[in-house]
């Protein structure tokens, strides 16, 4: 049967991507100020599992520390962020039925920046510990999504247009408050750290955080994968979905909340990383089609590979300096996006 062979080919693609992801990890582990050979990496990883010692235990040698304390946590974070943002991009584009949607579309980015700005310049939430900026950004982002959901449900059921417009309106408000704070704080150093934070970074990755973020992102992605049928129906529109027996209203809210949760955690641990969630879904749609059953897993793996490689490049492209990942991704992402725009055979937005 043809559908059988098709399923096998999707499984093959995923297997191939999984292998590529492992290779990307090995490559990114090996490069940096200190070059490691694959043998060293292999030994360092195997030893950790056989020694039974905690990762943080001192005196396990420099190779162990480079792998387990410096490079691996940030690569794991990069993979999780890439996976989360790509899948959220797919979801947002389906939920608002708009090819320009990305994970931050519903004002999440400006909510997160307002949170971060308030934390950095006004010191709000210092008591929350070391990563209080991340926590404030998480709260800003999540509150923003709830606000947009709430607004879009005022005066009748929400729909994709109301969600987009609500997001734009709240974005403007948040942007104004951020500028207000920046203007009156008059704090040059603080403004610099905001700018740095906005570019995103994986440098702050720690195992204890990954233990929380990892399961949440992976479970959320798996959950969204199980919702492929609903997501397909969303692209047909509410009326068609109704005649096919599904009222999308409640599902739309659930998916928005789940993806806001993912984006919130991404923002918390890595700041703002643009373009991944916009470009990866489009590229994957061009390759495997619009069916979310294939789109979600392939986009998740591709996003992970993309950011792992990007993180490797960031650490090595300029000697002895780390390029903020947001800059690199925009440099790669923007031309990709223009290419997509002019490529006419691809018709998410109708030809």
């Amino acid at each position: 049967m043809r559908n059988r062979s098709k399923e096998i080919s999707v499984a093959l693609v995923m297997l191939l991507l999984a292998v590529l992801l492992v290779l990307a990890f090995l490559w990114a582990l090996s490069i940096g100020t200190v070059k490691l050979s694959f043998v060293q990496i292999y030994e360092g990883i195997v030893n950790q599992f056989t020694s039974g010692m905690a990762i943080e235990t001192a005196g396990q040698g420099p190779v162990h520390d480079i792998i387990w304390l410096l490079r691996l946590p940030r690569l794991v974070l990069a993979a999780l962020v890439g996976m989360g943002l790509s899948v959220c991009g797919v979801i947002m584009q389906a939920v608002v039925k708009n090819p320009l949607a990305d994970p931050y579309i519903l004002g999440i980015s400006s909510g997160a920046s307002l949170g971060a700005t308030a934390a950095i310049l006004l010191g709000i939430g210092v008591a929350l510990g070391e990563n209080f900026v991340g926590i404030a950004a998480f709260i800003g982002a999540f509150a923003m999504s709830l606000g947009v959901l709430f607004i879009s449900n005022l005066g009748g059921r929400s729909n994709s247009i109301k969600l987009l417009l609500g997001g734009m309106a709240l974005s403007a408000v948040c942007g104004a408050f951020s500028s207000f704070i920046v203007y009156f704080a008059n704090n040059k150093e603080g403004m610099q750290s905001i700018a740095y934070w906005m570019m995103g970074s994986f440098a702050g990755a720690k195992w204890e955080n990954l233990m929380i973020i990892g399961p949440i992102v992976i479970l959320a992605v798996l959950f969204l994968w199980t919702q492929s049928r609903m997501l397909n129906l969303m692209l047909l529109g509410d009326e068609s979905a109704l005649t096919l027996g599904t009222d999308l209203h409640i599902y739309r809210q659930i998916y928005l909340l789940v993806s806001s949760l993912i984006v919130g955690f991404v923002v918390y641990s890595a700041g703002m990383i643009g373009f991944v969630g916009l470009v990866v879904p489009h590229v994957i749609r061009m390759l495997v089609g619009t069916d979310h059953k294939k789109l979600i897993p392939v986009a998740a793996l591709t996003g992970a590979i993309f950011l792992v490689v990007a993180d490797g490049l960031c650490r090595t492209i300029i000697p002895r300096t780390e390029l903020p990942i947001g800059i690199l991704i925009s440099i790669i992402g923007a031309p990709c996006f223009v290419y997509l725009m002019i490529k006419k055979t691809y018709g998410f937005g109708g030809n």
Partner: protein
Amino acid sequence: MEILAEAVKMAFGSKEILKGIDFSLHNKEFVGIIGPNGSGKSTFLKCVYRVQKPTGGKITLNGTPLDELSYRESALQLAVVAQHNVYSFDFSVLEVVLMGRSPHKKMLERDNLNDYRIAREALATVGLADFEERSFATLSGGEQQRVILARALTQQTECLVLDEPTNHLDVKYQLQIMDIVKSLDLTVVAAVHDLNIAAMYCDRLVAIKDGQIVGMGTPRELLTEKFIYDMYEVHCRVDEDTSGRINIVYLPQHWQ
């Protein structure tokens, strides 16, 4: 299969679109709803297929009021081919048709071989068996509507609602789609723009104007020159051939 509507009313704010429609559709009947633009025929059908909620009256499906059915339950009894519009996605034809299986599926259930078989049969019925791998967005309007018809057939319902499905289509595709539907021996209710098409395919016609039913009957009984003038303010000549088939010829002003 039976659909009954009693005193169905629909109002947007103070504007009454439907002023109490009584309607019945019986097993294996092919009923056409005619009426000028803005008469409420499409709104009435939307109430039947639940995209809009009537503000008054009652609609029952095989004796059960629509409000008491889940959307899934009604989608198992009634499939819809709506007006052609622009779609913003890039699904393959087979993927679109398979979505017709949605009401038969549980939350996490996957499409199985049986679903694929039903979808392929439906595509063959509408004459698009070779199109399954094609991208839906690249098809012509007539082909897209036939794919949507195949999707409706994949729902395997006894009743089909056609909401002006052949709008904007060439006469070839209009006849083709109506021919396919007619050959299926289902219970059909269709909003039809073209009176000749209505006369050709429908067992019974219901005429709606200004939200009210203004006439009912077989095409031959209903579509008289006077009635058409009262409905559409258009002069015409209704010809009848020896087998009792009617044909409406519109008479523009410079012919009169």
